[in-house]
């Protein structure tokens, strides 16, 4: 029985799609049969980030409506074994995600995959709520910034009240915090919320810290999940995050200010 992992945030632009692409790729690299689904109906983008935009034939909505079957719609990744991409529709609107239809597709995916990674749209409308509803685990992507943290808190509230697990009185959704676009230098200067600040406020387990990095844009430019870039710190941070998600213990890396590190950490954190 596969596990549905919803990548969510409330706020837009924090790195949900980048994270979904990296995490699903990382899970597949570790041998887990993984599919990554785009829930952002009408604003398809996961296909671009995964570099499969020219291979989309059928989409999520086609499968929900019975116009195509799963095998026709799933795109097999050419770089990583065990990885499949499930694109969404670019033309329909979000209401096309009919509840029974989505439920049927998710059940079929649960039977065929180890992990079903759902890339949630921003906001708290139908698409986002549908992705959240099916979650067994949720990765809450948060930037160290007030509006993002507030929205994450809101999403955490919804996970505990509006998920299928909550509705059926099952064990609660497993929640993980993924802090992205983190700048250790700015934290040292007191210009950015620190890891401890965000964790204290949201109080869920920290799965990883992804430093602000030029390699993320480079990865999206070329349609390569950033985790495949072994030279980039963001890629290595995602690799650590996936390992922690799977239960490994790994020390947090790339979280110290680079310049004047010792002096700043002595006086800045006082």
């Amino acid at each position, binding site marked *: 029985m596969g596990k549905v992992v919803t990548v969510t945030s409330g706020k837009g632009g924090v790195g949900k799609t980048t994270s979904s692409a990296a995490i699903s790729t990382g899970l597949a690299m570790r041998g887990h049969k993984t599919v990554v689904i785009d829930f952002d109906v009408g604003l398809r983008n996961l296909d671009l980030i995964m570099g499969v935009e020219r291979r989309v034939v059928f989409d999520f909505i086609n499968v929900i409506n019975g116009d195509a079957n799963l095998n026709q719609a799933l795109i097999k990744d050419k770089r990583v074994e065990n990885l499949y991409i499930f694109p969404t529709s670019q033309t329909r609107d979000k209401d096309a995600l009919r509840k029974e239809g989505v439920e049927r597709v998710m059940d079929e995916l649960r039977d065929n995959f180890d992990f079903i990674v759902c890339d949630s749209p921003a906001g708290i409308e139908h698409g986002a709520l549908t992705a959240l509803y099916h979650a067994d685990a949720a990765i809450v992507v948060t930037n160290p*910034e*007030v509006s993002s*943290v*507030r929205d994450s*808190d*809101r999403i955490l*509230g919804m996970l505990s*009240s509006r998920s299928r697990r909550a509705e059926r009185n099952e064990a609660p959704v497993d929640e993980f915090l993924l802090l992205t676009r983190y700048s250790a230098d700015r*934290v040292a*200067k*007191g*210009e*950015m*919320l*620190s890891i401890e*600040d965000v964790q204290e*406020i949201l109080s869920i387990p920290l799965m990883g810290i992804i430093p602000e990095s030029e390699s993320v844009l480079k990865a999206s430019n070329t349609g390569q999940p950033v985790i495949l870039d072994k030279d980039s710190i963001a890629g290595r941070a995602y690799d650590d995050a996936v390992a922690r998600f799977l239960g490994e213990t790994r020390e947090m890396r790339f979280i110290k200010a680079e310049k004047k590190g010792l002096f700043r950490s002595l*006086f800045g954190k*006082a």
Partner: protein
Amino acid sequence: MSILERLFGRRTNQSATVAKNRLQMVLVQERAGRNAPDFLPLLKNEILAVVAKYLDVEDEMIKIQLESAGDTSVLEINVELDKARIKPKPAIAAKA
């Protein structure tokens, strides 16, 4: 400015500290209201309208909370009164 002032003053003047404090304040309120039923804001407005007929009250002076423990829920309505602002006569009387 002394070294001590610089060390301690700097931390509290940093914008990240301001951000954290503001977040903590706003989230306390939002979390409390999260599981509240949808009618609560409407109820609050109607109570406010009634109270305002007799007393000079403002929006933030009425606090409504619904707390649940086990099978029981308690609806708590608190109206904060400012003595100086109590109307000399009820509004209805004044109208006549």
